[in-house]
């Protein structure tokens, strides 16, 4: 059998090389499709921002303007709502409380999740897969199931209405999440790195802190972002475990409805202020976030 192709056949095919579309036409077509996707994306972003804009808009208005007429932007710009929040300790302490337990939770979680994720990514041990699955089920456990026992558990150990109580409670879903993300990042670091370090005489703790953690820096950054996110947005547990001393801002916001009606301006301003920490955090990790969102699993 001969594989040589007929020359005439090849010649005939070869004529297709210069197609009917001119380069200019093609460029136009590409540009048009690019503009179309820009437009769609822009449209989505605008629709997405609109509710947040509305909140911002209201937070800069007086209650009488909010309730009086429909205005697309503040006619009488006022910062009174914000000033009110920042001068009232029961308001701003809500932010301090939220920040405090979120920070504590991030610290505790990352400290215990790092070694555990390392164990999952490097070793097999009895029951490892089942343990991992059990962890993930905690990610899915609806907090509503646990509300009452939580209250009683923390009450009986004397932690009720402390920041650490909320921080510990949020470990329920944050530790599994952290292990899940970190395990993905760690598995993409070749095992040879570990072995080389041991041969070079590094002890495990020294290797872990000096070599391994710097290698998965971006993974840790992304993990912290997720920990922040889920601890910051969760309120059901935080509300149940606190009364006055450690109450999160989300709870304090409900106070805006009084007998004389709802103080819309303050509510909106408080809402805007809950968004700001998120913006800051996402700004800091923006360069790693694209990779990190796949949870190290692409």
């Amino acid at each position: 059998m001969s594989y040589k192709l007929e020359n005439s056949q090849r010649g005939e095919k070869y004529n297709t090389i210069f197609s009917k579309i001119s380069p200019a036409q093609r460029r136009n077509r590409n540009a048009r499709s690019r503009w179309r996707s820009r437009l769609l994306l822009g449209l989505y972003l605008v629709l997405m921002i609109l509710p947040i804009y509305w909140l911002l808009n209201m937070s800069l208005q007086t209650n009488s303007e909010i309730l009086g007429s429909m205005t697309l932007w503040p006619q009488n710009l006022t910062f009174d709502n914000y000033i009110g929040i920042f001068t009232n300790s029961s308001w701003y302490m809500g932010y301090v409380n939220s920040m405090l337990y979120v920070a504590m939770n991030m610290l505790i979680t990352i400290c215990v999740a790092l070694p555990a994720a390392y164990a999952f990514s490097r070793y097999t041990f009895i029951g490892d897969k089942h343990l991992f699955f059990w962890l993930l089920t905690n990610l899915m456990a609806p907090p509503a199931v646990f509300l009452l026992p939580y209250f009683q558990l923390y009450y009986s150990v004397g932690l009720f209405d402390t920041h650490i109580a909320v921080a510990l409670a949020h470990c329920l879903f944050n530790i599994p999440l952290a292990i899940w993300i970190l395990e993905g990042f760690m598995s993409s670091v070749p095992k040879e790195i570990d072995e080389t370090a041991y041969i070079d005489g590094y002890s495990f703790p020294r290797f872990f802190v000096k070599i391994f953690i710097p290698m998965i820096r971006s993974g840790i950054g992304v993990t912290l972002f997720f920990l922040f996110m889920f601890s910051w947005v969760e309120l059901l547990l935080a509300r149940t475990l606190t009364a006055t001393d450690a109450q999160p801002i989300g709870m304090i916001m409900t106070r805006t409805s009084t007998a004389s009606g709802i103080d819309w301006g303050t509510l909106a301003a408080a809402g805007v202020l809950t968004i700001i920490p998120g913006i800051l955090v996402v700004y800091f990790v923006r360069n790693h976030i694209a990779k990190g969102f796949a949870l190290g699993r692409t």
Partner: protein
Amino acid sequence: MAEITLKGLAHSYEKTPKGASDYAIRQMDHVWHQGGAYALLGPSGCGKSTLLNIISGLLEPSEGDVLFDGQRVNELPPEERNIAQVFQFPVIYDTMTVFDNLAFPLRNMSTPEYRVKPKVLEVADILELTPLLNRKAKNLTADEKQKVSMGRGLVRDDVTAILFDEPLTVIDPQLKWKLRRKLKEIHERFNITMIYVTHDQLEASTFADKIAVMYEGQVVQFGTPRELFERPAHTFVGYFIGSPGMNFMAVEFRDNQVMFGSQPLPVNEAMERAVADASNSVEITSNNIKLGIRPEFIAISSSPSADSVPIQVTSVQDLGTYSLLTFKLNEQTFKARLPEGHSPVGETAFARFDDAHVALYIDEYLVEAGHE
């Protein structure tokens, strides 16, 4: 069918390149003839892949033209250039079977199914993929995957050139050899122009009839493997080709002698004149004059002769069929290749450079000593 000509080609990734260092490809002219098997050899970062992508149309060159059979194709996208490219890491369509992978380019051109099948079977047969045709491409080994991606280039009747971008990087050593032979076989059968990018000189010389050596965005020499070995046109070629590479000595003409530092070098008259001319020439301002000699052409003996120089032997390495001798001359390290059974040498010995194989480099480029 397709003669690929690069005319005044240059490429920079910057929008406004400032100096030569901003260019990935510096101004060059080159012709790849129809049906040739070429290799593009060079260290990483020398612009090989950039050049390949310009030829295939993935990149548009910032200056100059790419001509296919004399027609300018600069703006033509890859899909209209009738070119196939095989990448460093095998690109396969995971979810398809091997058959569908091979048929993919044909189906994209809406080839009728009755013509797709025989073509795919034919290519699968050549590449020895027939038993795998119904397997999911995802589960293949790296070399099988790479064969599939090669096959996708071969199924198209209209392909006039196949470009390979270090295609054997991820293949096991013993399979590399087999695949390379397969490539050679395909080249002979189909008479397709093949350009093969690699940083491995052995790979280049076993595959290609002619090798283009690239260095800092330029093709510094284009020739057969033999030419590259015997007459390196640029010091880089001398250093890069051969193992170990060429030895170089920065020389000057002093006291009516060719001097390597404090060591007078015995060279033939033509060479001496050439070095003298170069030293005195006003054009050569850098004073960059070098003599090059391959380790193969240095003879070592224990006793001095008229045209030898004294050396300090640092080490001798027995490499089976030959020994590699490292020595010092004028504080610089040299390598020499001793044939099997060469008599042992002491710490001090004498080296003689074979006149016919000493080459003169001015500003790193080869100058034929006799022809000036």
